[in-house]
């Protein structure tokens, strides 16, 4: 709308920059988690994730090769040479030392005179030459404290630990499948139940219809906190107890008001002619519903399905109350993460990876079905 009056707004640049700033601000937190999940423990502990693209400085304690095995005679002296780092390492040494009291006593390339222990020269790439007399070059390998720049490095080890290790405290694999088991029935069943009710509220005439619609609108906002104790008592009372059946029923019921509301609003907007023609041709309500209304309502069904999927997948409270028992076998991912926050509060490589595993599926669904999500939101709240 910039050019409506024929003048180009001088604000265009400001708009671009402001948008960019806003987007960066909003993406930044998630990006931090994502990048952290691919970093090693050492890297996470020595530098912020924003520095992961540049080389990070780390201090290490390394040891030269054992003189007993590796020393080579050189005239009347002995020499041990080799590389402090493992093969293929791309670390670059800046400073080093031979005592823990002064770990950066020498620059790379310097030669240190260690008195009784001979002389040691360490190069940037970690290669060293240790030279001395028979007596000096003996015993264990010499300790070297190096400060080296490590190039950016990313690893999948965290995902292996979280998904494949089977470690009972860290493992998300079981929780992942539990979440899936909760989510899928809890998404599909309310759709079926709500679709029939929405059809009745949209296209059938009966006394009390307006009242029922008002009731559904009212129930939309009833906090589910109210339902926790009475329903838990009910479940325990009729023998369902804590378990999948209970959580499926609860999710189905809590999702119904929104489902009925969304679907009814959509179905009311369908053209009246189609339905009346079908009636004239002798179709029953059941046939009209399954053959005409249901296929035409696909966008609304998809919208609700996404809502319900995201809600059940991300839910913590309902699962905690109706599903997770003392054995912990039926834990879901959100609960698992909260527990990790307690037991592994400082282990960011595990936490970040676990959290990312749990948000990956919703993110994929979100980006793939965004159109329907937006449509559902608009239908659900703009009046």
């Amino acid at each position, binding site marked *: 709308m910039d050019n409506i009056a024929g003048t180009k707004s001088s604000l265009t640049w400001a708009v671009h920059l402001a948008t960019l700033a806003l987007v960066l601000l909003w993406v930044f937190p998630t990006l931090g988690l994502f990048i952290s999940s691919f970093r090693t423990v050492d890297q996470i*502990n020595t530098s912020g994730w924003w520095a992961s693209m540049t080389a990070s400085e780390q201090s290490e304690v390394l040891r030269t090769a054992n003189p007993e095995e590796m020393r080579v005679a050189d005239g009347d002296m002995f020499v041990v040479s080799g590389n402090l780092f493992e093969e293929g390492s791309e670390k670059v040494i800046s400073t080093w030392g031979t005592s823990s009291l002064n770990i950066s006593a020498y620059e790379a390339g310097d030669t240190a005179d260690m008195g009784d222990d001979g002389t040691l020269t360490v190069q940037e790439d970690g290669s060293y030459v240790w030279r001395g007399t028979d007596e000096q070059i003996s015993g264990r390998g010499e300790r070297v404290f190096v400060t080296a720049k490590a190039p950016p490095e990313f690893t999948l080890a965290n995902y292996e630990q979280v998904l494949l290790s089977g470690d009972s405290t860290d493992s998300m694999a079981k929780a992942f499948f539990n979440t899936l088991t909760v989510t899928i029935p809890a998404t599909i069943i309310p759709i079926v139940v709500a679709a029939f009710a929405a059809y009745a509220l949209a296209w059938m005439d009966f006394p009390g219809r307006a009242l029922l619609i008002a009731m559904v609108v009212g129930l939309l*906002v009833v906090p589910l906190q109210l339902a926790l104790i009475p329903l838990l008592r009910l479940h325990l009372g009729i023998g369902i107890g804590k378990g999948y059946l209970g959580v499926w029923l609860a999710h189905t019921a809590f999702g119904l008001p929104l489902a009925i509301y969304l679907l009814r609003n959509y179905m009311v907007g369908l053209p009246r002619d189609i339905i009346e023609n079908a009636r004239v041709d002798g179709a029953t309500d059941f046939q009209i519903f399954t053959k005409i209304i249901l296929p035409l309502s696909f966008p609304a069904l998809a919208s609700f399905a996404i809502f319900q999927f995201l809600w059940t997948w991300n839910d913590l409270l309902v699962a905690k109350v109706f599903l997770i028992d003392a054995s912990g076998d039926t834990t879901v991912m959100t609960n698992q993460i909260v527990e990790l926050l307690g037991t592994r509060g400082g282990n960011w490589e595990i936490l970040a990876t676990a959290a990312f595993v749990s948000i990956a599926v919703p993110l994929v669904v979100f980006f793939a079905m965004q159109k329907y999500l937006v449509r559902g939101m608009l239908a659900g709240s703009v009046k």
Partner: protein
Amino acid sequence: MSPALQGLITILIGVGGCLGYFYFSNQLLDKVIFPGKGPNAGRNINRANQVRPWLFLLPAMLFLSLYLLYPVVETLRLSLTDRDAGGAFVGLTNYQNMFGEEKFWEAMRNNMLWLFVVPAASTAFGLLAAQLTDRIKWGAIAKSLIFMPMAISFVGASVIFRLIYVARPTDQAQIGVLNALWLQFEGGAGSFLVLKVLPAIVLLSFAAMVAYVGYILLKPFLGRGASYSTFGSVLRVAGLAGAGYLVVTSLWQVVEIFTTQLSYGEPQQWLTIPFYNNFFLMIVLIWIQTGFAMVILSAALRGIPEETVEAAIVDGANPFEVFFQVKVPQIMGTIVVVWTTITLVVLKIFDIVFAMTNGQWETQVLANYMFDKLFRANDWGVGSASAIVIMLLVSPILVWNVYNARKEMR
């Protein structure tokens, strides 16, 4: 039986059962109870059509009444009984106990703070994002990135933000962004500008904005003979009281900013600083809800008739005037809807507080207080009483929504 298999069977039973129920109950109605044949065919068809809606509604009604209506009544009853005394009726004792507890008032205070800050900030950011992204080519991408946190669970978001707030001892590298930034300030002129002057300006402009809103609310009362409804007046007075409170608080905060000594150079445990830690928790929800506000408001902005904007530009309005005086008033209805929707989320907020602080360091909120009472203290009476408090806080919005829905259907 493995849960996955059980799940599959449940889907089959659930979906198949529903479809089967609808099909066979319809058959039963049409063929057996009121057959559309024989001497009374006409009357029977009519009768069948009167019963049919209830067949369609039955499963949903069962679920709704058992899982949502019954609990409201039952929670109310439980809040008046004592579990330890075998469920004896104890009147308002539970409420008295709850009102006597400092933690409850802390939760109330914090919830009120959340109630003001989160919807306001989310709507404001959402409006900003909507207005910005509607004007540029890559707006769609920008929108979907700002919208993305909607898909992330509150727990996931809590982990994300704990990574931002994490603090480490002074001698180690800071891995939390906030502390890394904090350590850049050393107390010089730059720090004074960024940490004192800038927040003061932000707070003052916020106070000015609120005062302006208050003035708009006050205007009808100043004008003579203006007609207004009682309900509207009540809302206006409530709004005025809220605005007054906000103005006074923010002005007081400006004074505080200049008087407090900041401990430069020391990493901060952000989540343990009383009062301010509430804001660090709120940021998480604002981050999530802004996308929602943006999507709805952006649709509303696009629905504004262009003639009104054109007319304003022809009359010489600058872009800010166009936005605040032409566009915003036209989408006021939508802004209210967004505001109330986010308010509902805020009133029920649980996961974020549970995962980040669990109500420690004065960050308790009602839903978490209730969870504490129910499942840690095992005090169902007070737990139910606090659930009823949440319900009472929600009910104005409930009434308002039902009122609007009924108005619309007429």
